[in-house]
Each structure stands twice: as structure tokens, then as C-alpha cells.
């Protein structure tokens, strides 16, 4: 089930091998007795880029954290419904291997207070990659993939926190890619970055198309339109987040089924 992180299966060779899709079925989440979102069913298509849009507080991020079971770290949090990775229930999976297969990028870059190299090496080692040259190769690969290699190749031992915000975010992406995940969850990955870094990261996300199943939360409608194949709109109704509409980008943006969607994408609401 879990792809081994090996030489044979580096990024280039993955293209022929379709990444797993994810599917939420009637998913609800409560913090204590307050509902964050309710009855969300959504399929995240294999190899596609799905954008989650909607106003603040409608449960997008909460939804994201359910998918890799990070929500379990919040004590008062209760989840009901079912999530499938490929065709397996995530609750049945070992949480560690689940999180290896479902990577995550946060809104604020969060590299560890280690060296640049160690930031990537450390999770690799923990997931069983031991050989030195293997690690060196993967580190170089993923750093090249995120376009960071030329910028940092001479100072791999420097503290990761000395990088700029955009570089840090790309390092975090590289770190996630190094684990060869099937799915990548991104929580507004560009919103804390300047426009140039943001564009770089955005291009990176586009380049992941086909190789990974990507789910990205964004407030930037233009961005969603640029990068995504599918769009899902969350909205607050009845004091809880709900999935209003989802579908291919062109369909949602050009002929929305729902009045709320139309208002939102035209900038009249939200």
C-alpha cells in the first residue's frame, strides 16, 4: 500500500503511476458541542488539484485536518463520517503511515529549528531511509523540485530558520515531497508569502499536477481558478460549515448551480 521511498520510484517515474484519491463521506466535525462543519461528502480526484474555497470560519481547515487525522490532536474534537484513502478507511490505517502518505503544508511555514539538510533528512530517516547516499540523492532531488537547490546547495548546514519566508515554505514542501506522499494537503500555502514567493509556490503546486493528489485551501479565487481542476465551496449555514457546491473549475466559475456560489465568486458576498 505504502510506496517505498526508493531509487526506482523517484518523482519522474511516478507519472505513470496514478496517485491515490481521497474521499470524504458524510463527514462532520465538532469542537465540544459546537459544529465546525457538517455532512460533507467530497471526492478528491487522483492526480488532480482540488481547491477549497469559501469565507473564513466555514470549516475548510478543519476539514483538511480530518483527512490526515491531525484533528485528533485537538482534545475536544469529535469526527463522524468516513474518509477513504484509495479504497481504504483512514481509521483502519496506521496513523503514521497515513500521515506519510498524506503530506501537509501549513499556512505559516514551519521548518524545524534544524539545518536545511537535517529538516529533510530527519523525517526520511525516521521513515526508514538509512543509506547516506540515498538520502543525499533524495534531498537534492526534492530541493531541485521546489527550485531551492541552487539557492541553498552551498549552505545546507545553515539553520533553516535563516531562510526567507518563501524559501521556508518551499523547504516545507520539499520536506513533504521527500516522503513520497500520495496526497498533499495545503492550508493556504501562499497567504503568508509575498507576491513573488507566492507566485513561485503557486507554480510549484501546478507542477505537482498528475503526480500527486492535491487539496488546497485558498482565499484567492483567482489562484483557485489558475491552478485547480476542481473546486469545492464551503459556506456557513445553520451555524455550521457546509459544502455548497463542487465540480470542475470551469463549471463552478462559469455556471454555478447555487446562488451563493454565484454571489461569492462574483465578489458580492463573503
Amino acid at each position, binding site marked *: 500500500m505504502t510506496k517505498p521511498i526508493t531509487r526506482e520510484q523517484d518523482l519522474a517515474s511516478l507519472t505513470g503511476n496514478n496517485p491515490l484519491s481521497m474521499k470524504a463521506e458524510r463527514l462532520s466535525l465538532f469542537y465540544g458541542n459546537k459544529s465546525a462543519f457538517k455532512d460533507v461528502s467530497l471526492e478528491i480526484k487522483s492526480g488532480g488539484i482540488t481547491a477549497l474555497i469559501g469565507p473564513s470560519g466555514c470549516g475548510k481547515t478543519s476539514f483538511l485536518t480530518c483527512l*490526515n487525522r*491531525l484533528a485528533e*490532536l485537538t482534545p475536544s474534537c469529535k469526527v463522524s463520517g468516513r474518509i477513504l484513502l484509495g479504497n481504504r478507511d483512514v481509521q483502519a490505517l496506521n*496513523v*503514521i*503511515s*497515513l*500521515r*506519510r*502518505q498524506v*503530506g*501537509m503544508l*501549513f499556512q*505559516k511555514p*514551519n521548518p*524545524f*529549528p*534544524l*539545518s536545511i539538510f537535517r529538516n529533510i533528512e*530527519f*523525517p526520511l530517516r*525516521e*521513515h526508514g531511509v538509512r543509506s547516506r547516499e540515498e538520502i543525499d540523492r533524495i534531498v537534492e532531488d526534492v530541493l531541485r523540485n521546489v527550485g531551492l537547490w541552487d539557492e541553498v546547495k552551498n549552505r545546507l548546514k545553515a*539553520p*533553516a*530558520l535563516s531562510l526567507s519566508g518563501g524559501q521556508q515554505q518551499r523547504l*516545507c514542501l520539499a*520536506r*513533504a515531497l521527500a*516522503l513520497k506522499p500520495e496526497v498533499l494537503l495545503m492550508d493556504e500555502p501562499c497567504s503568508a508569502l509575498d507576491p513573488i514567493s507566492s507566485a513561485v509556490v503557486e507554480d510549484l503546486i501546478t507542477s505537482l499536477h498528475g503526480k500527486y493528489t492535491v487539496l488546497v485551501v485558498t482565499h484567492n479565487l483567482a489562484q483557485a481558478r489558475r491552478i485547480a481542476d476542481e473546486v469545492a465551496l464551503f459556506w456557513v449555514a445553520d451555524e455550521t460549515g457546509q459544502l455548497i457546491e463542487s465540480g470542475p473549475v470551469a463549471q463552478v466559475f462559469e455556471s454555478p448551480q447555487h446562488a451563493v456560489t454565484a454571489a461569492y465568486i462574483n465578489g458580492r458576498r463573503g
Partner: protein
Amino acid sequence: MALLAAAIVLLIILFLVWETLPILQSIGLARFFNDSSWHPTSEEFNLLPMLWGTLLVTVGAVLIATPLGIASAIFCHYYAPRAIANLYRRLVELLAGIPSVVYGFWGLVVLVPIIGRIRPPGASLLAGILILTLMILPTITLVADASLTSVPPEYLRGCAAMGLGRWATVHGVVLPAASSGLLTGVILGTGRAIGETMAVLMVCGNVVQTPKNVFEPVRTLTANIALEMAYATGHHRAALFVSGLVLMVIVFVLVIAAELLNRGRIYV
């Protein structure tokens, strides 16, 4: 105000120098390292064996207490259920305040006879190391505990998101992130170990010799001062203050060494 600490150190050094000046002027510093032995009443002032005593006891205790202390803190934070962690913390806090006399007394009555049964006389380097380990453990544990508290939660979340296990999170991210605090704990602990007097005096045997194994008795510089100050006069008394001065020099060297070692290794 910030310079107060520096001022106190300076005052203490001045005080020590003032007290040792007569003997340093009349016989010089070299005698304290070249004399054949320590018999201050017969004007022989070799401090080297006690220097070794102090170093061995301290290093031994720090080497044992550091992993134990840090492990205890990790245990409290990431492994123990909350109730047990709190209980454990309270216990350790309590031990931080037990007088050294009580430790020493316990060592003398309980620990020394046990070691004595393995290999007489019992009062030994080993006994000193064990007692000091217990005494500095609370310091290291509590400071480490506080610094673990301060590890930013994003790191933990980042680790979780990558599917890292608990131990991987701890040793890969938490420890490096908290390293400065851990080091502070170790330094404070080492300071306490070097400066400890009463407990060491009771369990170490206090024979002036360079020990060949852990079962041999040793005397530390602090015990030397405490043991002999009561009856010392003239040069003998001044020589005891030289012990104090030498001790300060060791502390200086250790602190600077720690500083250098540490420089550039901490990323936060």
C-alpha cells in the same frame, strides 16, 4: 542592575584573593601543584588530588544525572499520563529543596554501608557520584521540563503531519529546539555539583588521594574547606581559601568551555 551578578562575582573573587594574598605572596602558587602531598600543618600544600576529586565526582554525577534528568522531563511531557506526570513533577520539586545534610545523612547511613559490603570502605568516589546525581537531578529535570514547555507547538504539529512517531518527534525536533534550555539546566546542575559541600563531605571518605577506581575514597576541594576550616589558622587557613580560588577557576574554565562548545550549535 544587570551588572549586579558580575559585581557579586567580582566581590567574591576579591574576597578570596584578599584572604589568599598572604600565602600566595610568601610561597607562590606553584607549591599548590608541586608539593608532595597535602599536609598543611607541615606546610605541604598539594591541591591536585582534590582537584581530581572534585572533577571526577562532578563529571560522574553530571554524566549520570543529565540523561536521567532529561529523560525524566521528556517522560513528564510526552510519555506519562497527566496525573502521573504531575505527581512526578511534584516529587522532583520536593527533592530540589531537601537539605544537602539530609542527602548526606542518608548516604552515610544507607548508601555507604551498601557500597561497603561490595567493596570496603564504602565511603568512596562512587558514593559521592550517586548522592550528587540525586541532588542535581531535580535541577536538571525541572529546567529541562520548563524548556520543553517552551517548544513551539507548530513543530509538534509539523511532526505529526509527517507521520513521525513520538520518539522521532522528541529526539529529532524537540531536543534540538530545547537545547539551550537543556544546556542551562546542565550548567546549573554542574554548578551545584561542584559547589556541593556537606553531602559530599559525608559520603566521599575525604582521603587526600587521586583515586584509581570508583571504590576509593576521595576528597573534593569543597569538602577540604569545610573539613579543615574549623581549626585552621595562618597559612593553613589561607591555603583553604586557595582551594576556593582554584574551584572558582575550574568553574570559569568549565563555563567558558560550555559556551564555546555551545556556540553555533543552537539554531534558535
